[in-house]
């Protein structure tokens, strides 16, 4: 084991020297997502600041954990899901962000936290097959649960993240009380019981965005939960799918600085730069995820038509329930075990 | 005196084979074979490999379906009967003992199939094992047995259900020489005791001569000769049989009516020779070295070319005037070997008229 760590550390140390003094290294998820980030955020911001940005892809917070634990940190900034960033922060793997440097005054509340600043916004929505429901699909979570009004098969998330809130909303809990109710084992059990109620109609518990998009495309299910961007892509591809932002869950991806990052101060300044509205406004050109900075909507870059499709446009955001990262940090592992219990029944 | 494994004796069956033919592509494995096997006799099918003897046995057992022909056990036509309904005992070359059963399990197998009660089966199995001198071996595993023991178990299994016909496919070929010779005698005794019609396949002429009531010599899918061992040896029907069984030298002879001459010298003989072209067959042990005694014999002048010492006998090779080489075998006694002429010396060989065998010059009966 020791040998492995030394080898890994050596390899990382070698790559670390490759990044110049006047530059930073950013790690993200790759693919079309990172391409959008690169075009809209990284490249313009690095030009404006006159620094070099080295982009890498990584395997998530477990990579950061390895780097921090071996003291050979090479990433200055990592892109992450809000939940895992929150847990990594609690674990002590991330630097606290300096919000006197990063201006989040025009951010949506809740889209930044001590260790992570929001980079893009997406929604967990309910989507339906427009052929099965030609007269309009469900308009809230109660409808999603109503198998008499909307008969048909459903798909639902196979993991606990974003799975409990809709159940409570369908059960009549007010949006503002959802996380309060969930902050006890009984509350979690209440949400899971509600899912148990629907379970006979749930054909598939999906585990990836690609999967829930394909399920709708193939007509395997008539209704599913899922991430809005995927359904837009599927619809553009000819799938008979529509969704609504009403009662959807507003979630975000964020940027964080690993503990002991080699260019921590520069990274902080870079985060301040890409959080500005003018960069954020360009993101929807490349992917249908919304900016975290509200001010971006006031710029010309986002037309009204595009804005209507984005989760974080003020009108859409107002209908949604923002994900509570702190609740996930505290309760996710417990809730996850309980959720799995339900799945295996 | 017939004996039986049970008290109810069963009669042996004669086998009648008529016009059995089996071809593989253009090769005749069996070519219009006719053969009568007598009830209760020990008949050996003898021939070189590829002669068709095994094919004929497989046809008898039902494992090979011939192209045409008739096969009767007693009065019943069985040519279309599947193997498991033929009720024959068979001993396979590699024994084919079931490795997943014990010795007793193997021997009891045919009884089990015939619905014989466990108690009776156990009794008969033990009796069969005793018959092959393996009493008390029932619980052993097949892998724990020596080659000879396996052979006996295979035999016990083949006779335990008292088939009226027993087939054996080179059953002794895997055993060493000493054991083989002992088993030959045992098998023969067992046959005499049980009295079932036995068809035995071998390529070993000595084995055939030792065990059989009659031998059918097979070649190219045809029966070359069927007769008693001594008739086969002493009076082969053709050159193939003479050549295949025992050692022999063939000398060309001329024929003019009843006079048969070798190199212009008329031969005296006792048996009427067959018609057509003839050769003189000389067995090495029938030639004698003449030392001037008066007895009437056909005489051959020759030159000694080699002498081989073989322990119990010697083999002397000699060249006749026409260049043909003959072999002479003699028993070694303390005086005979040293009295032999030296290599290069001349010698007079004698052949008694009774041993002067004239056979057709061709290889096969109709050649």
């Amino acid at each position, binding site marked *: 084991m020791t040998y492995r760590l030394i080898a890994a550390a050596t390899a990382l140390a070698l790559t670390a020297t490759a990044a110049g003094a006047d530059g930073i290294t950013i790690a993200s998820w790759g693919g079309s997502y990172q391409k959008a980030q690169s075009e809209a955020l990284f490249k313009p911001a690095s030009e404006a600041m006159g620094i070099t940005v080295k982009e890498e892809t990584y395997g998530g917070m477990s990579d950061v954990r390895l780097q921090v634990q071996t003291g050979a940190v090479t990433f200055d900034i990592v892109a992450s899901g809000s939940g895992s960033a929150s847990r990594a922060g609690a674990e002590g793997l991330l630097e606290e962000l300096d919000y006197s440097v990063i201006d989040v005054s025009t951010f949506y509340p809740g889209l930044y936290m001590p260790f992570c600043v929001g980079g893009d916004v997406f929604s967990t929505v309910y989507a339906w097959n427009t052929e099965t429901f030609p007269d309009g699909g469900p308009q809230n979570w109660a409808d999603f649960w109503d198998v008499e009004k909307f008969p048909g098969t459903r798909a639902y998330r196979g993991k606990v993240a974003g799975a409990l809130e809709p159940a409570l909303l369908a059960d009549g809990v007010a949006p503002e009380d959802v996380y309060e109710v969930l902050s006890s084992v009984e509350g979690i059990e209440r949400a899971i019981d509600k899912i148990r109620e629907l379970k006979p109609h749930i054909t598939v518990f999906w*585990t990836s965005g690609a999967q829930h998009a394909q399920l709708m495309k193939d007509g395997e299910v008539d209704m599913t939960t899922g991430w809005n961007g995927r359904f837009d892509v599927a619809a553009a591809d000819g799938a008979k799918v529509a969704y609504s932002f009403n009662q959807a869950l507003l979630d975000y991806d964020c940027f964080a600085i690993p503990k002991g990052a080699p260019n921590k101060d520069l990274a902080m300044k870079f985060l301040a730069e890409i959080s500005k509205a003018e960069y954020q406004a360009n993101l929807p050109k490349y992917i249908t995820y919304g900016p975290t900075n509200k001010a971006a909507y006031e710029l010309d870059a986002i037309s009204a038509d595009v804005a209507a499709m984005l989760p974080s446009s003020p009108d859409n955001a107002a209908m949604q329930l923002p994900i509570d990262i702190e609740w996930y940090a505290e309760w996710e*592992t417990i809730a996850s075990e309980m959720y799995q219990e339900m799945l*295996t029944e | 005196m017939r004996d039986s494994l049970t008290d109810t004796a069963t009669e042996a069956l004669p086998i009648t084979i008529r016009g059995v033919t089996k071809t593989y592509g253009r090769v005749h494995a069996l070519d219009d074979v006719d053969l009568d096997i007598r009830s209760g006799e020990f008949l050996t099918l003898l021939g070189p490999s590829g002669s068709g003897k095994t094919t004929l046995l497989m046809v008898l057992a039902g494992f090979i379906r011939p192209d045409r022909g008739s096969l009767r056990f007693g009065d019943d036509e069985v040519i279309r009967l599947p193997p498991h309904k033929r009720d024959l005992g068979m001993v396979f070359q590699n024994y084919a003992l079931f490795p997943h059963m014990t010795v007793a399990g193997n021997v009891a197998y045919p009884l089990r199939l015939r619905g014989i009660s466990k108690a009776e089966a156990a009794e008969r199995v033990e009796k069969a094992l005793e018959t092959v001198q393996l009493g008390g071996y029932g619980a052993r595993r097949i892998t724990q047995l020596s080659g000879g023991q396996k052979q006996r178990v295979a035999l016990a299994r083949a006779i335990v259900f008292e088939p009226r016909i027993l087939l054996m496919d080179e059953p002794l070929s895997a055993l060493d020489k000493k054991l083989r010779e002992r088993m030959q005698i045992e098998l023969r005794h067992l046959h005499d005791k049980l009295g079932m019609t036995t068809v035995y396949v071998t390529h070993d002429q000595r084995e055939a001569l030792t065990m059989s009531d009659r031998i059918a010599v097979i070649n190219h899918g045809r029966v070359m000769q069927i007769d008693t061992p001594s008739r086969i040896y002493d009076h082969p029907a053709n050159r193939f049989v003479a050549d295949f069984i025992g050692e022999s030298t063939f000398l060309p002879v001329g024929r003019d009516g009843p006079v048969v001459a070798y190199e212009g010298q008329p031969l005296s003989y006792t048996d009427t020779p067959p018609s057509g072209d003839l050769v003189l067959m000389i067995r090495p042990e029938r030639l004698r070295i003449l030392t001037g005694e008066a007895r009437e014999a056909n005489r051959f002048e020759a030159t000694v070319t080699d002498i081989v010492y073989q322990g119990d006998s010697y083999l002397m090779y000699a060249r006749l005037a026409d260049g043909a080489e003959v072999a002479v075998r003699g028993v070694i006694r303390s005086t005979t070997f040293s009295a032999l002429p030296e290599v290069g010396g001349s010698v007079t060989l004698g052949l008694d008229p009774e041993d002067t065998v004239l056979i057709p010059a061709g290889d096969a009966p109709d050649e």
Partner: protein
Amino acid sequence: MSEAALPMAAAATHADDLRRDARREQLALFGLASPALLLVMVVLVIPVGWLFYLSFIGADGSFSLENYERMFDSKSYRRIFWTTFEISFLTTGICILIGYPLAYFLAQLPRRAANLCLITVLLPFWTSLLVRTYAWLVLLQRKGLINEWAIDLGLWDEPVKLAHNMTGTVIGMVHIMLPFLVLPLYGSMKAIDRDYLRAAANLGAGPVRNFWTVFLPLSLPGLFAGALIVFVLCLGFYVTPAVLGGGKVIMVSMKIASNIELFVNWGAASALGVVLLAATLVILFTAARFVKLDRLAGGGH
């Protein structure tokens, strides 16, 4: 006396030399094996040891049994193990039911035809597991080919649930596992001397009795080997249940993956791996005893 001693001494010297030669040969042989031994050490012993060690490390980094306690306390873990073994048994059973007649058929064919047929059996090996699994999804889902054709042909009116459940998972796994059963089985059937079957027929066994009393028992070692391979491979399956199980059929491997994602340490996942490994070893050990017994029964075969 001294004359006699000389050859004796020479003989003794040779004995030493010969012994040294023998030892050198053994060393050379060991040298040949050493790369493989080293590889086994590096890729097998060390990771498994590490896994074992990690499973006893709690979330706070100290020695703890919490990873195992969680497994015994929670019903879902028990169900996951149950599902894993249930699917493995079911898949193995169906593989035997389909694979045995198939191998039997192949073993009866002439060599050339059998080879050709074997290639078609092996063909699935040459396509990616994921592709094959998705192909099954295309066939089995609600609006998949099988349901659409069956409804067109009037076999059934409503789509039958073939995918996203246990049925789909087992269908997909049987397809993938079948060659692993057929190959060893075919080999052992081919190795059965025809004379055994002839002997049985000669002794009075008709084709059916012949099969049950001779052919089947003699093919059992191959069947056992194949079934064992299939069963053990099934235990660790991930892709097929993940794609065809609809998220409700959860096997141990999937739980391992989700534990790595969910918990901050590897111990939770390692503990699952250790328990699965232990369960597999118990089964292998039990099975090995049967196989050995069977070997004895199978004799030199």
